[in-house]
């Protein structure tokens, strides 16, 4: 029932992108997102599309798999397009009843749709090619300077990796409890809003209890292995930049400068 969420789920395979240091991928994603918001003409988006296509090709994640993940945000995309299309004032192209499509609206809607799609596919490449653990490791390392301002970077990163780790477990648990209550004649789909909200109680109470139970067990297991937070903690696989990571940084800088130059000047 709930297994169809593929947006940003790790896709296990061997590729250059998979092997890159998570820090490179994090910084790269941020660069890429910044670049998307700097463009003023189609050339920039063209450059972004080419760059993205190249990265997808290198990552060896089937494009079909990414598109499948996009389905869940199709609705959001549709709303954005519709609102921009009908509610932007300007030179009227088509008008019927109270709705009118303006030239500016059309341009804006297309731009927004392209930008959003590129944004989501681009950032999902990061999560598709990096395991959650690696990702939080990278984030922890990148945010380390914040420690000077007494931000508990390690603890935040640990919380994030635990949260990410628990998503599939809780999804599975939800599925199981849902089935168990369906077997007892529960009905999650009919009735008005209030009735449906009430029908969720037999699902949510056991789910919360099980989440607390799991949290308790995990805390116990961590303590049993002498976990005491980030202080003096070393890594089994410390993050080290290799040659390919420096090359990737170089490519990123070239892309950023090149695409923004194209997107703003041409």
């Amino acid at each position: 029932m709930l297994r169809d969420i593929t947006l940003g789920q790790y896709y296990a395979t061997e590729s250059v992108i998979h092997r890159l240091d998570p820090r490179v991928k994090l910084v790269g994603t941020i660069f890429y997102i910044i670049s998307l918001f700097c463009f003023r003409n189609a050339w920039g988006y063209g450059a972004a599309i080419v760059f993205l296509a190249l990265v997808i090709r290198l990552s060896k994640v089937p494009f079909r798999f990414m598109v499948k993940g996009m389905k869940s945000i199709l609705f959001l995309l549709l709303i954005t397009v519709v609102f921009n299309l009908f509610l932007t004032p300007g030179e009227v192209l088509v008008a019927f009843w109270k709705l009118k499509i303006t030239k500016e609206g059309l341009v804006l809607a297309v731009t927004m749709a392209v930008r959003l799609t590129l944004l989501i596919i681009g950032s999902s490449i990061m999560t598709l090619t990096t395991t959650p653990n690696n990702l939080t490791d990278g984030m922890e390392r990148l945010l380390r300077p914040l420690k000077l301002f007494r931000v508990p970077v390690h603890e935040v990163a640990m919380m994030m990796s635990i949260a990410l780790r628990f998503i599939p477990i809780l999804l599975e648990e939800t599925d199981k409890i849902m089935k168990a209550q369906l077997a007892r004649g529960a009905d999650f789909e009919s009735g008005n809003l209030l009735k449906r909200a009430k029908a969720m109680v037999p699902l949510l109470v056991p789910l919360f209890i099980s989440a607390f139970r799991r949290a308790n067990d995990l805390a116990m297991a961590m303590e049993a292995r002498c976990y005491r937070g980030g202080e003096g903690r070393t890594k089994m696989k410390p993050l080290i930049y290799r040659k390919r990571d420096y090359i990737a940084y170089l490519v990123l800088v070239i892309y950023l400068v090149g695409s923004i130059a194209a997107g703003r000047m041409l």
Partner: protein
Amino acid sequence: MSIILDHVNYIYGEDTPQAVHALKDICLQIPDGQFVGVIGHTGSGKSTLMQHMNGLVRATSGHIYYNGQDIYDADYDLKALRGKVGLVFQYPEHQLFEVDVFSDVCYGPKNLGLDKKEVELRAFDALRKVGFPQELFYQSPFELSGGQKRRAAIAGVLAMKPEVLILDEPTAGLDPKGRDEILDQIKELQTQTGMTVLLVSHSMEDVAEYVDRIIVMNQGSVLFDDTPHQVFAHYKELEEVGLAAPQVTYIMNALKENGFCVDTSVTTIKEAADEIMRAFQ
């Protein structure tokens, strides 16, 4: 009056690279009043198969008939079916949610749309049938012991008065005493009410004493489907798929190999004891 499975196939995650063929061409008939043991290794498809019986999981292909009606018919009332085919999940105590045991047991029959009096009567009856102590009726289900929680959860399904009761590993995580108590209770229930019971387990020992028929599942297919005596005669093949016959089967076979004239088809400890006594006389 029976459940018939006709060439049922089920594939998890169809159209993905991780597709798993969980059930392969299952054909079964389960007549009324039978006590059936379903045995298989973890991942053999037994739980998935059980979830087909009340329409929780829809087969990728094939048909399932309950009392002669195809449950995949567009106008078939699946909710009503779930009242007739009661399914107790693994670790059923994880589904408890109400403030006290009694209201939790009421949840099932209430969903069937019965009036309050009938609901409470059924809940009371179900709790008594599973041997739940009356002084704990209004306790919070979360304060009970593991065995009592399990009883309360089983009562929750029983209160719907199903014609078929499916129990998915009802003894998982219980101590030997709790296990025997639950199994005895189920057997008693089955003989008293004559309902069809399907008991899923991975332990031969558990089911050998109780059931009339054993279905052995292996990698999504039915490996054996016969009386316990017949199934245990294949104990060597059972071992190959990671299952084992009850201890007594091994003892009797060892005795026979060493020249004692005993019948190796006995399944329970009592039968074995009688058989050995007979052989020595």
